[in-house]
């Protein structure tokens, strides 16, 4: 049998960061996935666990504006960073263009993968205001077990449209 590895004993450390605009300081194992800190310590349950090996994208968040898979991001790397989860993207009164587009296109089925897709999409349209189908294929590589890809593609184009119209109106 192949030799497997032993986790290091946890090393507790204090980590300070901002999440959805609010400062937090947590004492935790610095090597623990940030996903667990977000869900279990800060009780923000919108970010999902799917695979735990950076394969599905359900745990996608933003760290300093960049899409990151939080199951593969050690909590210690969050020190001093600005983190955004799906809860911080927008709200019912003031939805983010991605959230608005998702509502318009009625994208979700079971919904489990959707926060990850929405965070990945928000990062995409930040970098690329008018993504083509090919850009979407190259950048949105999360997994939806319900197969909502077709509606998602429409929603991604719509989100870009909405974002561009808010930007040009402001």
């Amino acid at each position: 049998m192949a030799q497997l590895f032993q986790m290091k004993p946890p090393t507790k450390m204090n980590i300070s960061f901002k999440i959805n605009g609010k400062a937090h300081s947590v004492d935790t194992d610095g090597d623990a996935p940030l996903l667990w800190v977000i869900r279990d310590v800060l009780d923000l349950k919108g970010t999902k666990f799917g695979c735990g090996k950076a394969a599905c994208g359900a745990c996608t968040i933003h760290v300093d504006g960049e899409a990151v898979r939080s199951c593969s991001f050690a909590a210690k790397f969050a020190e001093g960073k600005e983190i955004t989860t799906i809860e911080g993207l927008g709200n019912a009164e003031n939805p983010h263009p991605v959230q608005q587009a998702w509502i318009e296109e009625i994208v979700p089925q079971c919904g489990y993968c959707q926060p990850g897709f929405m965070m990945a999409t928000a990062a995409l349209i930040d970098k690329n205001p008018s993504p083509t189908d090919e850009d979407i294929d190259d950048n949105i590589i999360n997994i939806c077990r319900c197969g909502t890809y077709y509606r998602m593609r429409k929603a991604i184009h719509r989100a870009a449209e909405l974002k561009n119209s808010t930007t040009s109106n402001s």
Partner: protein
Amino acid sequence: MKRIKTWLLFSPLLVAGIMVIGNPGSGTEPPHKTAELTTPDEAFDVMMQVLTHKRCVNCHPADNYPRQGEDSHKHLFGVERGVANAGMAATNCNTCHQDENNNYSGVPGAPEWSLAPLSMAWQGLTKYEIARSMLDRNKNGNRSLEELEHHLTEHALVLWAFEPGVNAEGIPREKPPVSKEDYITAVKEWIEHGAVVPDETTN
């Protein structure tokens, strides 16, 4: 979106399921020969045993797809090189790879995780061709011999090959067949003796 491996979603919870045996990422240590390398050609051979290993070549592809794993398969999920050798605009290397290996997810990491530029493609080349390409300033990022030595012996991303961590199943990745110390000694000796690429017809 590429419809890839939907079965991966909700696959067994590897984080919790990893068995606990042995030391973190230890794998089988390559033999550390303290014996001196007697000739520059010998030093060349030791160095090239590392530089032709999959831990190095997987990130020196001859096309736009990183390789991964012991069988050097194309990186899953359709991951591509991108314009700056670090992936696409919103989904790039650092979406998943951080500055160190992650033992929870099994995702490898080191500072500046990225592909070598296409000019430094090694995939499919012989050890002699790799060495000649490495010495060619038009291909090696305009590195002098001194800079090349620094890159080969001190760059964290290069030395990651000797600390490759574990995969998502908790199994240590295969390391190059010589130790880091022997590799560094070999690179320095080879360069000190003029970085001569041996004649491949007589080797």
